[in-house]
């Protein structure tokens, strides 16, 4: 890398870390919310006769 490796690799490294971090945080946050929802649905708060929805897959039409 023509002697500039000390700057190029950290630059790409930081970009990779931040992007991976954002992705992981997003996925983990969404999974945590889905677990909260499932827990609430399990306690029968949701409408009767409607099985607890899995992660947003069968949301009904408005």
């Amino acid at each position, binding site marked *: 890398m023509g002697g500039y490796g000390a700057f190029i690799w950290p630059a790409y490294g930081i970009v990779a870390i931040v992007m991976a971090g954002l992705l992981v945080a997003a996925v983990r946050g969404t999974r945590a919310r889905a677990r909260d929802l499932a827990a609430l649905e399990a306690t029968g*708060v*949701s*409408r*009767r006769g*409607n099985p607890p*929805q899995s992660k*947003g897959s069968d*949301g*009904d039409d*408005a």
Partner: protein
Amino acid sequence: MTEFQCSRFSGAGVDCARGGRLVFAALDFAVEPGCALVLVGPNGSGKSSLLRLMAGLIRPTAGALAWGDEEILKDRESHAGRTHYVGHQEAAKPAMTARETLGFWAAMRGAPGTGVERALEVIGLGHRMDYPGRYLSSGQKRRLALARLLAAPAPLWLLDEPSVGLDRDGVAMLERELAAHCERGGVVVLATHTEIALGSNAVELELGDFTPSREAVLARMAGEVV
């Protein structure tokens, strides 16, 4: 006093949500000119919310309110021009005297300052006109808030528990003014827990009837994004 040419104040299918909670749903009401609507119901049933909705301070999540056939949110200024809203808070600055406070609120509504003294006399603050706000008792502050109704004429009165803090003859004075207002063709909507005599043409609206059941709330939520 001026004669109000009022129109019918009504609301259809009104939903109100505060802080993510559906306070009441599918509420309908109608008040004819010269009549009074008394909002009753348990705490948290949305009496204050409905009054703020009627004042145009809150936007309903569904349904609409209309003065005659014109939706109130379509033209805020004219609706504000015909409405007086007296909430729980007194809107009186400690550093300003009763006369200055009332004169200010009358000027904000474009009314001439002439009615200020008379309003303070009628409301029972004649002897306290030039008292700074900080020395007024809470009952006197409540009277000052009610004096706004008299200082600048407006057909629609929205009162949130107006009798709180008033002594016996204060309540009597309030009842007299409300009756006079209705006779002049005005409309009164008030929420109260105490007994206020409003004459024959008063209609009661029990807000407890419009508190949504769990199923209704869940059904509404299902309609939202899942």
